């Protein structure tokens, strides 16, 4: 496969999975400045890993594995130590929506995900994407029992957050 074809194939993969990538980026970015660094880092790592992609594994599973691994490493860095110049433009461009009710629900979702640590973030994203416990255990590298326990724990935390949010809304 020549370089242009390879790039076309890669862009097609990104186009097909842009939603997955954006949700990972959005869940792991601490601020807007992080956004471009992280999206660039994920895209570069996906490109580098593409040649070793094993067709037996589902493409979306492979993308999650690479994207979450890069996002967790990026998230953990206490200082920004980018060794490449950030792009002036963004790779994933999201148009703003003007439905305020949806906006606040979406903000609640991302705010809740942001309260979790980096490993639990990965776990809840995979759960919300409807991956089975077996798939989550393969991607994360923990037992299926552990996946179930942790998901229950996160659900309880979510229940408390919803209750808190509900009480707060009523009191105002």
């Amino acid at each position: 496969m020549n370089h242009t074809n390879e790039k076309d194939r890669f862009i097609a993969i990104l186009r097909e999975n842009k939603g997955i990538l954006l949700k990972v980026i959005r869940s792991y970015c601490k601020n807007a400045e992080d956004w471009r660094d992280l999206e660039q880092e994920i895209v570069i790592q996906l490109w580098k890993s593409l040649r070793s992609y094993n067709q037996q594994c589902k493409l979306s599973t492979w993308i999650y594995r690479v994207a979450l691994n890069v996002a967790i490493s990026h998230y953990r860095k206490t200082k920004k130590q980018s060794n490449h110049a950030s792009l002036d433009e963004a790779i994933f461009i999201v148009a703003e929506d003007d439905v305020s009710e949806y906006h606040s629900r979406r903000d609640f979702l991302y705010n809740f995900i942001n309260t979790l640590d980096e490993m639990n973030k990965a776990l809840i994203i995979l759960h919300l994407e409807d991956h089975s416990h077996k798939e989550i255990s393969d991607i994360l590298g923990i037992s299926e029992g552990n996946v179930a326990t942790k998901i229950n724990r996160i659900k309880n935390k979510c229940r408390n957050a919803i209750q808190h949010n509900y009480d707060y809304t009523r009191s105002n």
Partner: protein
Amino acid sequence: MTTHDPTDLKMLWAEENKALEARLKLNESLLRKMSFDKAVDTLTPLLTFSIFGRYLALVYCGISIVFAIKVWPAFLYCIPTLVGGAAMLWSFFSHRSLKMLDYSALSILDLQKEICQFRIHTSKMERYDMGIVILWLITTTPSFLLTAKKIAIYENRPMLLSLCMAGAAIAAFVFLFTRLIYGAYNTKLLNAEADLKRISDFEQKDSD
């Protein structure tokens, strides 16, 4: 969010998926302009540099052996040179755990553990590596001067004095900045160890 049911979260996520489909656009013209093969991620240069440094230690060891053979049987020159070479060989073997990481082949936990272990390893070894380079320079310089410049440094008092002063200056520098240097290493080490502990806790908390 008005209900108390966390399963709503999954519905909201699905709703977000649909909404994103319409609002999200990939900047393809930018992607076509990017030269991916030249692009570098954050960790790869660090790993490449460390692995390169490991093989460089083997080259330095080889240089020491060549100089030691050339100055043989002048023990005053060849024994310190061999000590410097042995230190480099030790450095080469102590870094044998370094390897490139495959983001797509390892599970998230395994890859994150490898990254933490790499950070712990480099933070622990940096202090020894610095000492080994200084030792190698001090022990190899007399043999180098004898072989390449025909200067027998132990019979040339001004040169010997200069070498001793350079050695003392480096030692003083290291001594004076030890706390600062070790402080930085220790901070990196503690951070990496804390990260590794959190990963292990995440892995092990099966039933609590």
